């Protein structure tokens, strides 16, 4: 469709005119004229909702909201075209079959072996070995080898030595969705562990010998403690209500030597609504500080983040400080349980704070333990009530921790943002379907590519320059303050306002420091080489004093310029928050002056387009993502690295 306008959300003046294309996998907007021809690419998988707004004199507005929080506002001149686009997008954004998804047509031009290698990058058996398993207390069990016991669990699970197949099977019958207690994390220093499961089908009074034996087995696997914690991450009321449906929670009377604990984290519906409300705040035009703070509090979002974090902290403390094992569950053991186990593991083990370790963590606690990616993130069109930002919340917990402990993580914010992006993008096969079983049936590894390999290849973009494996923050357990610390939870504008350029600093400290680090390294290597050469020369010219060496002047060579034009930015509309008043006529009194808006018209400024003026000041054009020209050719790489700085994302 031609003559479509793409509006800038913050400044309604800056509208780009161009052509809109729809392909099988993307929506593409290409700006007209100008040498730059900026392109905006949006994957259909990313589209969360499409809103057709009332036709105005300028055309028919269409608002596309994406799962990665990008919001695209188009104005299509003809109502009929707009309707066609709308209907098409609705269909394209709601695929019915997996084969429609981008990952099945994405071609990064790797051969079969490279694809396989990509999938092998993260190996869970290696991970459990790293933890020190199997050992005297823990073993690997293949009781679920054909997904016969639990269809959402992996084929290999780790269980206490004293848990026989009989016990496992019996316990699974007493657990919602058959999700029996299995190992998530083992601490070899003190034998304490984190196990996870779903809720027991205890109702008001049902018991199951094997399930009780299972918990005992977990306790016995830790000789250092004579009890285990059982943590139910649901609010007490919800858990109690479940009893009426024949489910519920563990009764301390029936299970010997357990200490039961509720840690109230709300359910997926509350979280979905919370995010919705927060995004509404983000969409406010020129909100006051009040609007923003009230809106944010009203959404409850940060409160939920804190709840998840507090649960993780509780478990990490139990394991690291008390040396007590913990069994975690919620209802089905695939949402809050995953969040809480991953946060706890991250706090406990510095390995998970490395790039590779983080990938392993997600593979372990989310992918292998059957988190329902398809239902939660809408790979395919499904029940809107199943959609919920579960992994988004976990990723945000990691970001909050990164803000509190800037030296503790090997990866940076961009890493997290790109992972979130790709959970929704379906460009890679890692996060498809609802369970390992489904992925195996679809032969995902043979037909798609692994995100981890892709991120690993580009890992220099994702490094945190402040990370040093020998730094105190990277050793051992992280101890976030629990109270008082409400203020420590910040609004993550890097994620939720990701595409609003004006809100973020033009130049990233991370990128600058990475460049400094690299250059220092290069110079040090050069210095070494030159030093060797010097030594050799001196040896061979012992009697010749004419040779002089020049010391390296590192400071001069570190020619990094931060004061280049890309630092310049443009003023936003500082007068937006004033109400509009008609412009003043000479006969009126002073009252009118109070509301004069500093607008283009009032000032009769010499340049008609402020934005053009600002570009001149800023010199270098905005970083725009180039995607391969022509709609038919699929982009061969994720240009996400530019996406933080540029408004337009090319994928």
């Amino acid at each position, binding site marked *: 469709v031609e003559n479509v306008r793409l509006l800038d959300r913050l400044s309604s003046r800056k509208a780009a005119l161009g052509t809109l294309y729809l392909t099988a996998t993307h929506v593409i907007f290409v700006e007209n004229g100008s040498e730059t021809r900026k392109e905006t690419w949006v994957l259909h998988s990313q589209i969360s909702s499409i809103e057709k707004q009332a036709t105005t004199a300028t055309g028919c507005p269409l608002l596309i909201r994406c799962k990665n929080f990008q919001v695209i506002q188009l104005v299509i001149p003809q109502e009929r075209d707009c309707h066609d686009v709308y209907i098409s997008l609705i269909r394209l954004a709601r695929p019915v079959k997996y084969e429609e998804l981008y990952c099945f047509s994405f071609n990064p031009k790797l051969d079969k072996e490279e694809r396989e290698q990509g999938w092998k990058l993260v190996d869970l058996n290696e991970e459990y070995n790293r933890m020190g398993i199997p050992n005297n207390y823990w073993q690997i069990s293949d009781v679920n080898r054909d997904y016969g016991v639990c269809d959402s669990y992996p084929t290999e699970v780790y269980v206490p030595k004293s848990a026989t197949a009989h016990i496992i099977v019996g316990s699974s019958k007493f657990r919602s969705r058959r999700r029996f207690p299995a190992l998530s994390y083992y601490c070899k220093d003190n034998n304490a562990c984190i196990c996870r499961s779903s809720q027991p089908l205890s109702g008001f009074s049902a018991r199951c010998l094997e399930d009780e034996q299972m918990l005992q087995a977990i306790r016995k696997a830790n000789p250092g403690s004579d009890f285990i914690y059982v943590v139910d991450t649901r609010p007490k009321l919800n858990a109690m209500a479940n009893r009426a449906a024949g489910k519920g929670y563990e009764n301390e009377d029936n299970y010997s030597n357990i200490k039961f604990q509720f840690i109230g984290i709300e359910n997926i519906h509350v979280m979905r609504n919370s995010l919705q409300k927060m995004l509404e705040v983000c969409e406010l035009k020129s909100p006051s500080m009040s609007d923003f703070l009230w809106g944010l509090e009203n959404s409850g979002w940060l409160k939920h983040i804190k709840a998840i974090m507090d649960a993780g902290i509780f478990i990490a403390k139990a394991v690291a400080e008390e040396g007590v094992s913990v069994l975690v569950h919620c209802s089905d053991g695939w949402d809050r349980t995953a969040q809480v186990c991953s946060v706890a593991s991250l706090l406990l083990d510095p390995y998970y704070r490395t790039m590779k370790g983080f990938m392993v963590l997600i593979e372990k606690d989310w992918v292998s333990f059957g988190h329902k990616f398809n239902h939660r993130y809408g790979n395919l069109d499904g029940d809107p009530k199943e959609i919920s930002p579960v992994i988004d919340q976990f990723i945000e917990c990691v970001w909050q921790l990164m803000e509190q402990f*800037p030296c503790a993580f090997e990866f940076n914010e961009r890493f997290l943002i790109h992972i979130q992006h790709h959970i929704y993008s379906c460009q890679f096969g890692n996060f498809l379907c609802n369970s390992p079983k489904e992925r195996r049936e679809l032969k995902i590894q043979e037909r798609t590519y692994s995100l981890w390999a892709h991120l690993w290849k580009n890992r220099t973009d994702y490094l945190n320059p402040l990370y040093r494996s020998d730094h105190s923050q990277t050793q051992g357990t992280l101890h976030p303050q629990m109270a008082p610390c409400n203020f420590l939870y910040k609004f993550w504008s890097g994620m939720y306002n990701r595409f609003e350029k004006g*809100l973020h600093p033009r130049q990233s400290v991370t990128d600058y420091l990475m460049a400094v680090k690299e250059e*220092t390294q290069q110079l040090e290597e050069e210095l070494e080489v030159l030093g060797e050469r010097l030594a050799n020369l001196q040896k061979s010219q012992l009697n010749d004093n004419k040779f002089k060496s020049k010391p390296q002047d590192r400071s001069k060579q570190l020619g990094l310029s931060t004061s280049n034009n890309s630092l310049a930015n443009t003023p936003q509309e500082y007068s937006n928050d004033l109400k509009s008043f008609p412009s003043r006529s000479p006969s009126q009194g002073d009252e009118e002056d109070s509301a004069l808006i500093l607008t283009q018209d009032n000032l009769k400024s010499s340049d008609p387009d402020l934005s053009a003026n600002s570009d001149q000041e800023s010199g270098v054009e905005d970083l725009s993502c180039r995607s391969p020209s022509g709609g038919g050719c699929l982009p061969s790489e994720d240009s996400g690295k530019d996406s933080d700085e540029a408004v337009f994302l090319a994928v």
Partner: protein
Amino acid sequence: MLRSSQPLTGPNRKRCREDEMLLGTVLDEGERGFIIDTRSAQAAKQARMTGGGTEPKSSYPRWRRLHRPLERGRPLQESFIKLVEACNDTSINMDRWLSRLESCRWLSHVKAALSTACLAAQCMDREEASVLVHGAEGTDTTLLVTALARVILDPSCRTLVGFQGLLEREWIEAGHPFHLRCARSAYSHARLKQEAPLFLLFLDCVWQLSRQFPFSLEFGEHLLLTLFDNAYASDYGTFLCNNEKERSLCKVKESTHSLWAWLNQPGEKKKYLNPLYSHNALVIWPSVEPQSIQLWQGLFFRWIRSSQYLDEAWAEIERLVEGN
């Protein structure tokens, strides 16, 4: 950019030829100027009853007046006190923290101050117009706006030495009554009438700038905290008294030491420098969206929460930049 106090128009709309001529000569042929009045239109009008007022359009035809009300005086001090109370309150639940923060209004004041300073800067830089800033007395919000606008516009004010010079000229010499304004701070029960944290508000705004432009200020948070401390209680005479006249009468220069002299000693200076600094010749335009304005944790939680991890991060940054 000019600053002054309010014109004494009074209820009878008095005029003053000299004042009109003065403002007239500031503008070039065909140029127009902006008057940024830091009071609301209503407050400015009411000021006439007590002898003050605003510049009538008819007498100052080439000046356009804009009102940008900024909080000052008692309400600002209350805002500060409430914020400090909220920060110290360990009983607040997460689901009420943000509304509590909002009810203090401090961040709204930061946003308003930054917006107004940006407006002044925009008039000068974008519209190439002259700007006159005044409130009532010209000693509080006026200085807040002009000093902040300087930091935004002028790279030389963003160096350590330049910033000190800015403080000397736009706050100290300009007559901000430090002795009255920075008397007892937030914990005192005294609730003095003349006390108000304008200078702290200024420092907070500068801190916001340093966060949004991490490479553009030669100094870091430590300097701002030190300035905050010294404004209230100091070993040095720099922030003593209320104006130059009092300082002269008290013989401050003869009997005390200067804070700047101490700060600029090579050994001390290092602590205040920003390792990421790189001269930025351009204007820095901050975002005043609520998401971009954060609570200055380094100040308000200074004694409540350890800054150990952040300090370690800065140490790491210094180490990297100095090339190990």
